[in-house]
């Protein structure tokens, strides 16, 4: 038989001023099964807690109901009190007679009655509670970081420096990401490579980090603490063990004119190449689609010239399976190309370039060695027009959001251009300037005030070529909407930042959610901006939304700290408020499967002694289940139940709703 104690808190005057706490205690004492009932000024205070502890001992209580504030406030406090006396903490429930009662109703009998009813409802729940034990899940203390841009690098280093193993995978031949392509960075104008490459080297040399470049996620199974990831290590046709990175092969390759991805196709590269001199790992890769050997089997220049004998034309993709406990997704973003814009010539004008292409023209390691020369004829442009919001904030083009980084990098581009071509002119067409970061606004003003960059508020309707000039037709909305026509030598489009084309398929592989733009979704926009809805998987950098470097790095460290916190325990403890299925009554209709937002409902085959399948039933993966209970209400045969909110508990609560209170009064 249940022996339940009821403890009514006055909360000073907060409850007692409108609720007759003594009377509530008295009414409660008449509920069958309640063996002790009292009221006290501050139940959460030390003496209050002691009062509960003593009563538990004295009356051999099996359950406790505390009538006080909201359980969102003090439920952990009182559960701890109960647990200290050896009772399972889930036998303690709180009845909210403050926020839901004394604070919202006037003093009077009805308010007291409501408090008493609330107590009774919770007494009925406690009566039907069952002991629950925190779920312990073992944790594999190894993290998988997907993406080797600055976010992935930062997350890997942070996690590794805390003493955990990290597997960092990068789909390109080298880590570094977009940051490696940048010339200088706003708002300090320090050289991007100078601050990035030491980090890249640190990753390569870190004893805890296994770097797998030229690799992608093939599939993922499991749940928090216990993922099993399969990684496709793409064949680079180089034996990485043997290769010493001398680079002779790249010089000997007869194919030389492949558009260079690292230079945003502003330069050329051979078919066997290292993306850029500081690449990590500094090992080449053969571009199979463009290699003469793979086309007709004839060419072997690289192989014959490799003194290390590292060229391996027969190399195959490898599938490698690793156990990891947590995953950081840091796959970054890409930008729209100039061909996305009908009104700016569908990419047919060579001197209309993207911001990233201009970045390469500015970079001292770029195709022009840092001189601004336009792609069509190599001349130094004397008039450059920058167009902000190219594709961003443009619902007609399907991109409603602000790409966030363009205002700043366009100011930087104009500034660097003016530094390199002091007699040149830079015009920027903009709609709004969004410079809300530390030292950002000052930076933009510097471009205007010190470097004479000309900002024109208006959008450009058309760019076309005439007599070797690019005619830019825009408008100055701050000048009575006067149409503006500028003859430019070069046009730079600050094109929209978008998710990678394969972001959606990666999200599906990882079972994380993504928004309509294919950016990955955080678990909560304010309070859980780093976690995904899938426990154990966190996000870092621009794969979640457009971000600049400081933000990406901050989020990466946040993701790392979430991961490190997870790894700090040997066993993962989870609230046992999860669903459980009854395998003997489940008929396996699996209509519940699609209601689970966490894909926690799995198919389990029940076999007889001979191994024949008798039936297939639903089984809840306790690692994935978050305890919403949607499947429970959904199951026709009541074969799923939610611990902590079992059918029996909630049914008892409802049964106790309006018990004729006269019986007790």
């Amino acid at each position, binding site marked *: 038989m249940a022996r339940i104690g009821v403890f009514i808190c006055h909360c000073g005057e907060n409850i007692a001023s409108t609720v007759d706490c003594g009377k509530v205690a008295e009414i409660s004492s008449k509920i069958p099964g309640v063996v002790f009932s009292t009221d006290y000024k501050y139940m959460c205070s030390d003496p209050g807690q002691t009062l509960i502890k003593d009563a538990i001992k004295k009356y051999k209580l099996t359950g406790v109901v505390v009538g006080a504030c909201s359980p969102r406030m003090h439920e952990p406090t009182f559960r701890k009190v109960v647990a200290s006396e050896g009772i399972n903490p889930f036998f303690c429930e709180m009845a909210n007679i403050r926020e839901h009662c004394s604070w919202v109703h*006037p003093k009077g009998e*009805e308010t007291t009655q*409501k408090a008493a009813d609330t107590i009774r409802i919770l007494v009925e729940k406690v009566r039907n509670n069952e002991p629950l034990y925190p779920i312990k899940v073992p944790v594999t203390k190894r993290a998988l970081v997907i993406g080797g841009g600055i976010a992935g690098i930062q997350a890997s280093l942070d996690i590794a420096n805390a003493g955990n193993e990290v597997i960092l995978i990068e789909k390109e031949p080298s880590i570094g990401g977009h940051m490696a392509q940048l010339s200088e960075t706003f708002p300090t104008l320090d050289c991007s490579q100078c601050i990035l490459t030491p980090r890249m080297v640190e990753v390569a040399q870190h004893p805890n980090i296994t770097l797998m470049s030229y690799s992608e996620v093939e599939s993922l199974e499991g749940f928090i603490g216990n993922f099993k990831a399969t990684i496709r290590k793409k064949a680079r046709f180089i034996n990485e063990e043997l290769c010493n990175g001398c680079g002779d092969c790249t010089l000997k390759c007869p194919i030389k004119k492949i558009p260079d991805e690292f230079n945003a196709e502003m330069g050329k590269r051979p078919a066997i190449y290292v993306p850029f001199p500081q690449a990590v790992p500094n090992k080449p890769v053969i571009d199979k689609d463009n290699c003469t050997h793979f086309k007709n089997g004839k060419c072997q220049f690289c192989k014959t010239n490799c003194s290390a004998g590292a060229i391996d034309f027969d190399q195959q993709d490898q599938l490698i399976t690793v156990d990891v406990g947590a995953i950081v997704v840091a796959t970054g973003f890409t930008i729209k190309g100039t061909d996305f814009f009908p009104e700016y010539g569908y990419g047919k004008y060579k001197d209309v370039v993207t911001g990233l292409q201009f970045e390469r023209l500015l970079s001292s390691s770029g195709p022009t060695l840092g001189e601004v020369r336009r792609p069509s004829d190599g001349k130094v442009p004397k008039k450059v027009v920058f167009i902000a919001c190219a594709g961003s904030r443009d619902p007609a083009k399907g991109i409603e959001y602000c790409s966030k980084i363009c205002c700043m990098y366009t100011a930087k581009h104009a500034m660097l251009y003016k530094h390199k071509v002091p007699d040149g002119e830079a015009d920027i067409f903009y709609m709004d300037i969004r410079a809300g970061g530390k030292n950002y606004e000052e930076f933009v003003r510097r471009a205007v005030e010190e470097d004479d960059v000309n900002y024109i508020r208006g959008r450009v309707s058309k760019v076309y070529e005439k007599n070797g000039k690019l005619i830019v037709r825009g408008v100055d909305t701050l000048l009575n909407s006067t149409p503006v026509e500028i003859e430019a030598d070069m046009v730079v489009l600050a094109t929209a930042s978008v998710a990678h084309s394969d972001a959606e398929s990666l999200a599906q592989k990882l079972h994380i959610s993504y928004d309509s733009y294919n950016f990955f979704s955080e678990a909560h926009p304010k309070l859980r901006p780093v976690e995904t809805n899938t426990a154990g998987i966190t996000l870092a950098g621009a794969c979640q939304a457009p971000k600049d470097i400081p933000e990406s790095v901050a989020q990466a460290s946040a993701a790392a700290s979430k991961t490190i916190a997870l790894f700090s325990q040997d066993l993962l403890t989870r609230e046992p408020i999860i669903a459980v299925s009854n395998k003997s009554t489940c008929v396996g209709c699996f209509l519940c499967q699609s209601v689970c937002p*966490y894909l926690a409902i799995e198919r389990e085959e029940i076999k007889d002694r001979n191994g024949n399948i008798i039936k297939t039933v639903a089984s809840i993966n306790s690692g994935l289940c978050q305890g919403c209970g949607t499947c429970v209400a959904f199951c026709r045969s009541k074969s799923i139940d939610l611990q902590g909110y079992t059918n029996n508990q*909630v049914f008892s609560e409802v049964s106790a*709703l309006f018990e004729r209170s006269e019986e007790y009064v």
Partner: protein
Amino acid sequence: MSEFEPKIVAFVCNWCTYAGADLAGTSRIKYAQNVRIVRFPCTGRIDFMLLLKAFEEGADGIIVSGCHPADCHYTSGNYHARRRWMVFKDLLDFIGIDSRRIVFSWVSAAEGAKWAHLVNDTVSEIRNLGPMKEYKNLENVSSNKIGELIND
């Protein structure tokens, strides 16, 4: 007999509406005492059988409230609940149970005032509808029809 005071039960989710009701409390927004709150993790957890049970227990009106679309703590429980209630409401209408006695609402953790209004509105609406006499009269409907049938 004094004016009829309806008995209202509120089935609310823990993350939005329960917290919204807490906020009404911390903001000291006064509302009618008629409501008794039962806490669930999510509107998706609320079984339609519990609504029937509440009527059986003597409720005159029921509030079912959870997170606004897109706000669900569990991503989609409220969307499933929304479909469930759409269908359930149609069934009650067809059977002749006054579906106005069940009030569905989205109340977020920030909407303390909305919660208070919701309770007050529901109480006054149900007061106008009068006691849920259909269910109460059920106890008086004897099974005599069965008797008639057997005698036929």
